[in-house]
C-alpha cells in the first residue's frame, strides 16, 4: 500500500495511479455537500454554483461552522456516510466532473461504474478525528447558505494535506470493502459455532 500527497484540482493521472488500500492526503480546492444539494440540483432542476465549477474534489460532510468576528470558523469536520447519496452518486460524478469523493460507508455499484467511466475515486477515513483535521481546512466561502442551511450548504474549502484517507473505490470501479466484507463473512461460520448455533439452524417463520 502506497501513500500519496495529491493537489486539487486533480488530473486523471493523479487518480488512475491509486490502488485499493492506498493512503492519500489531499491539498487544494474542494467543496462539500449532503442530501439537500443533490436534491436541489438533480431533483429540483437548479444549477451548481459557479464557485465550485472548477473544484473536482467533493467531500460528503455537514460540518459545524460558526460566524466569529465576521469570519467563518470551522468547529468540527468529519466525512459523513456516502451511501445515502447513492441515488444521485453517478450523476454527481458525471455532471460535476468529479475526480475524488471523500466520505465514509463507501458507495454502491452504479456510482462505482460511473467512477470507472469518468476516472474518479472514493476515499474513506479510517478514524473519527475531527480535531486532527480542523487545522488542515480553511473555509474560503459558502454557497446556497440561505437556501440549504448551514449544514447542507456548499462550503468551499482550501485543504492543506488533509488525511489520511484510504482508497476504497478505484478508477476501475473495484471496491476495497467487498473483499474485507467477504473475509468477515467467512469468519461468520466460526462465530456461529462459537455461539453453539447449529449449522442447520432455521428460523421459524412467524409471518410474511
Amino acid at each position: 500500500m502506497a501513500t500519496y500527497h495529491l493537489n486539487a484540482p486533480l488530473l486523471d493521472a493523479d487518480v488512475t495511479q491509486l490502488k485499493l488500500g492506498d493512503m492519500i492526503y489531499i491539498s487544494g480546492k474542494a467543496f462539500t455537500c449532503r442530501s439537500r444539494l443533490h436534491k436541489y440540483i438533480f431533483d429540483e432542476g437548479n444549477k451548481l454554483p459557479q464557485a465550485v465549477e472548477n473544484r473536482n474534489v467533493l467531500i460528503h460532510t455537514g460540518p459545524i461552522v460558526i460566524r466569529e468576528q465576521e469570519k467563518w470558523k470551522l468547529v468540527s469536520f468529519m466525512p459523513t456516510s456516502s451511501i445515502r447519496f447513492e441515488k444521485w452518486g453517478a450523476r454527481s460524478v458525471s455532471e460535476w466532473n468529479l475526480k475524488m469523493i471523500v466520505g465514509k460507508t463507501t458507495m454502491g455499484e452504479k456510482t462505482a461504474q460511473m467512477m470507472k467511466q469518468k476516472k474518479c475515486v472514493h476515499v474513506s477515513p479510517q478514524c473519527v478525528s475531527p480535531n486532527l483535521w480542523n487545522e488542515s481546512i480553511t473555509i474560503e466561502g459558502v454557497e446556497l447558505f440561505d437556501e440549504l442551511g448551514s449544514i447542507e450548504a456548499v462550503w468551499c474549502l482550501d485543504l492543506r494535506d488533509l488525511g489520511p484517507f484510504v482508497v476504497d473505490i478505484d478508477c476501475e470501479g473495484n471496491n476495497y470493502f467487498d473483499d474485507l466484507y467477504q473475509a468477515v463473512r467467512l469468519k461468520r461460520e466460526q462465530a456461529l459455532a462459537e455461539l453453539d448455533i447449529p449449522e442447520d439452524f432455521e428460523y421459524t417463520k412467524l409471518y410474511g
Partner: protein
Amino acid sequence: MIPTNLYEQIIFETIRKGATVVSEDVKKAFENSIEQETSPVSKVGLEMTFKSMQLSAVKDNPACPDTGWPIFYFKVGNECQLEGGFMELEEASRRAVIKATEKGYLRSTMKNPLTGHDPGNNVGINIPNFTYKFVPGGDIEITYVAKGGGSECFGGTRYRMIAFADGVAGIKKFVLDSYIDATRAGAICPPSILGVGIGGTANIAANLAKEASCLRVIGSRHSDPMVAEIEENLYGAINHLGIGTMGFGGDVSVLAVNIEYAYTHIAGIAVAVSCNCMVARRASTRILSNGTVVSMQSPDWFEGR
C-alpha cells in the same frame, strides 16, 4: 425544592459535557483496544480517534460533528421536588438544547421528517426525547445522550420477533448477523457499543436495546448470570470476526455487548439491537435534594452496571 435556574444550568452543562468529554469507561475501552489491536490501519484509526476525542475536552468542541438526536434520561427520586414541576424540567431541557446549538456544542441536525424543515435549534415535535425512571429518594440524575446518526441509520438498529422454538440460538444469530451487516465499510463507526433488548413488546425491546448501548458502563456485566454469559459469548464471537476500526479489518470489532431484558408474551420473543458509535457520547450529573451538584464519570441508569 431544586430551583429552575439550577437544573437548567446543569442540563446545559451536561449537554456540553456529553458532546465534548468522553466518559472514563469509553477512554478505558480505547486504551485497551489500542493495546490489543495488531492491524496497523485499525490501530492507527483507534489512536487518531482517541487523540481527537481527548482534544475535544481541551478545545471544548464536539467530539464528532454529528451531535445526533438529543435524548434525555432522567432518573428521578420519588420525593424529588423541582421548581415548576416536570413540565418545567422538559421546558428547561428544550431551552438548554437551543442554547447548546447556538454555542456550537450541538450541530443543528434535527429536521422535519416529511418537509425537511430545519428549525435551526434541534427542537421540534417529540424532540428532544425524554425517558424517566423512578427510584427512592429526592435526587435527580440527568443523563444526556448525543445519539449519532451513523450508528442509528446504517444498520445499527434492528428488530425481529423470534419464536420460543428458536430460543437463545435464534437470539444470538440475529444479533451476530445484524452486527456483521451494519459494520460493512464502517457504516456504524465500529468498534461500536452493541446494545441488545430481549423481550417485551417491540418498542420495549427497542428501548432496552438503546439503554443497553448508550447507558450501560462498558465492561459491566448483567446481574443475571445467564444474561451475562450470553453477553460474554457474543462479545467473544464478534471480536473474532476481524471487522476492525471503521471496517478496515482488525482484532477489535466491538467495544462492548450489553443486554437488557423484559419478560415477554408466551407468543414470542422480541429482540432489538441498537448500536452506539465508538465515539460514544453521553454524560450524567446528579442534583441532590439539597441542591448539591455531583458530577458523574458515567451513567448509573442500571444501578451499578
